[in-house]
């Protein structure tokens, strides 16, 4: 039975890798990423106005790749206006040996050397109808321009989205493509981040989920969430947790809750699930989530969960 579960998980992973390569991923049920201008209030749902994502290109991909951004400008009816649109957000792509290292997880935002690596491409977007609800492609990049990391299974690139000015929220998403003009997934590619800034769906019936990966050194995790606005509940699923409730943040504050990790959860993905308030609709809710291990090191959130979506495995006993 376990063997079948592994096979199913593998198939799931491969199939996700084959047919989708966006961040956020469709199965996460998160509509968009969000980065506010540097003058915004953190109470609007962004604690540092900077989002760092990494993409992994498997060795099998030898042709050029493109990092595409949907709706990179801050304007139009998709983005979150605070008065007149006045925001500029910069997107920078980094490669080279320093774009990712084992200590990267300690650098979550502007407080560290978040722009490490070799700058491959950079572009700032303000209000620009040309890019409103359109895709902008960075690249082409030779995969070897990224840093090859054996344990991550390929070449890594970093993309930093940073609010340069203004106070509006730039709402966008990424796609890792082999084409500059359309979204053609890189087979076996993936995205991950150590700090997830995202926009929740407005529809109360939608449940969003993100997937941190727990390595074999982890004995406990601290789940932190920022500016959840008490919009329902946050739960954790894994092979050993069947919807454990997590403390939730209110307006403009961080809440941290620690959970033990049991042996069977090591080297597996856990799922953090966001269920919106079913009675009171909260619109345009933005949230930031970090999961750290017992050393305070952040765990990566993969948009395509490693090993597949975790399935709770009860331990039946009789007495």
């Amino acid at each position: 039975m376990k063997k079948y579960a592994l096979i199913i998980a593998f198939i799931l992973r491969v199939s996700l890798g084959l047919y989708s390569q966006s961040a956020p991923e469709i199965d996460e049920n998160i509509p968009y990423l969000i980065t506010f201008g540097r003058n915004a209030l953190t109470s609007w749902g962004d604690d540092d106005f900077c989002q760092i994502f990494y993409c992994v290109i498997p060795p099998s991909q030898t042709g050029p790749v493109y990092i595409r951004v949907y709706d990179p400008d801050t304007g139009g009816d998709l983005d979150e206006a605070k008065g007149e649109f006045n925001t500029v957000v910069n997107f920078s792509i980094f490669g080279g040996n320093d774009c990712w290292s084992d200590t990267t997880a300690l650098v979550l935002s502007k407080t560290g050397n978040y722009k490490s690596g070799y700058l491959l491409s950079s572009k700032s977007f303000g209000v620009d109808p040309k890019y409103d609800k359109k895709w902008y492609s960075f690249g082409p990049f030779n995969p070897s321009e990224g840093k090859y990391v054996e344990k991550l299974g390929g070449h890594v690139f970093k993309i930093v989205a940073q609010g340069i000015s203004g106070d509006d929220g730039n709402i966008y998403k990424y796609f890792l493509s082999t084409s500059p003009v359309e979204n053609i997934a890189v087979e076996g590619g993936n995205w991950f981040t150590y700090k997830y800034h995202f926009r929740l769906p407005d529809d109360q019936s939608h449940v969003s989920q993100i997937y941190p990966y727990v390595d074999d050194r982890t004995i406990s995790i601290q789940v932190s969430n920022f500016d959840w606005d008490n919009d329902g509940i946050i739960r954790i699923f894994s092979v050993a947790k069947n919807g454990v409730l997590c403390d939730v943040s209110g307006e403009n504050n961080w809440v941290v809750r620690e959970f033990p990790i049991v042996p069977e959860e090591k080297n597996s993905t856990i799922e953090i699930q966001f269920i919106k308030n079913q009675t009171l609709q909260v619109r345009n809710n933005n949230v930031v989530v970090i999961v750290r291990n017992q050393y305070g090191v952040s765990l990566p959130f993969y948009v395509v969960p490693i090993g597949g979506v975790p399935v709770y495995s009860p331990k039946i006993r009789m007495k």
Partner: protein
Amino acid sequence: MTRKGSSLWSHLKLLATEITTAFNDGPATFNEKGNIIYYSRNNSIENSMRNITDTTNKLGIYSAELIDGKWTNIKPFTYNNPLYSFCTPALTPDGGRIYFSSDMPGGIGGMDLYYCDRRNNEWDLPVNLGPVINTQKNESFPYACKYGKLYFASDGHKGFGGKDLFYTQEINGKWIEPVHLDSAINSTADDFGLVIDSTFENGFFSTNRRKTDDIFSFSSAPIEFTECDSIKKNNYCFTFYDEKQRLLDTVQVIYQWDFGEGIICIGKEVKHCFPGPGNYSIKLTIIDGLTGDTIAKKVEYKAELENIKQAYINSEDIGMVDKSMSFMGVTTDVKGIKVTDYLWNFGDGFKQGGPFISNTFKKKGEYMVKLGLLGEKDSLGVVHKTCVMKKVNIN
């Protein structure tokens, strides 16, 4: 010869002249009522001159009925054959089987033990007891006890010398390895012809340890069981739970337990009673109470239920004074012991019995009925013992 008092015997008297010949007569066996006798004697008794050295005059088995104080209707056993010996008959207490010894062809060697079952008032074909019991040498003098034990004499099995006394028992259709009666009975001389009372307390056997064939009596030392366990009640009711769930602060998760045959229980901890021992499959489905999604689908748990390894006494718990009560010793769950003896104690010491026994209590009160079991000797010669007890109230 009849007993006078506890230790004296009356003078010898001939059992009956009508079944006495000038040749060899006996040994004999009687049915339960004592009105039918089977005995061995020489087939030819017509010669007026007795010739006990005539080896052609073989022994045969004969029967007679006691009618109006006289043994009449003397008949030869169906399978007697003048060319071979048929002797030392022994009826089982219920009269349904007769054991005997014979050197007829088809045996293992020498004199072998056989039996015939009685069917439709006729004796079935003789059955050889097989190589576990019979040897190349001689097995004879069977004696069938009330509770299935068969005593016999053999000079083929390992013993002290000459004929020695053994017992065996048919368990689940197979004869157990003969058990050698110890030195309290057997000697280096010939020991044979054992008979014993129904409670196995007193008996007699023949021996030539004093150079002549003599009858010896013996009394069994009472068998004691130092420890008797109360019968533990089998439990088939259990609480099922998810060990992981107990540690979790989780809400709105629906646990659905499928015990088969349409029995579905809902709850994080559920109780279920199975009908009895056996292998069961329990399937757990966990449903997210918020989203309706299935968190875990039909996760199987296999439960193997066994009865407690013990003997049981099946009986009513309450009885009445002067009314017979039935008791049954159930040993199907006593593993590791091939039960050879059932000993029952109704308050007056352990006495030999069988798996089924009746007892009549003469006084009101609370009785602790005990069942002691003896097992076949193991390879080290150790007899395994176990004992259970049950409380019975007599009103």
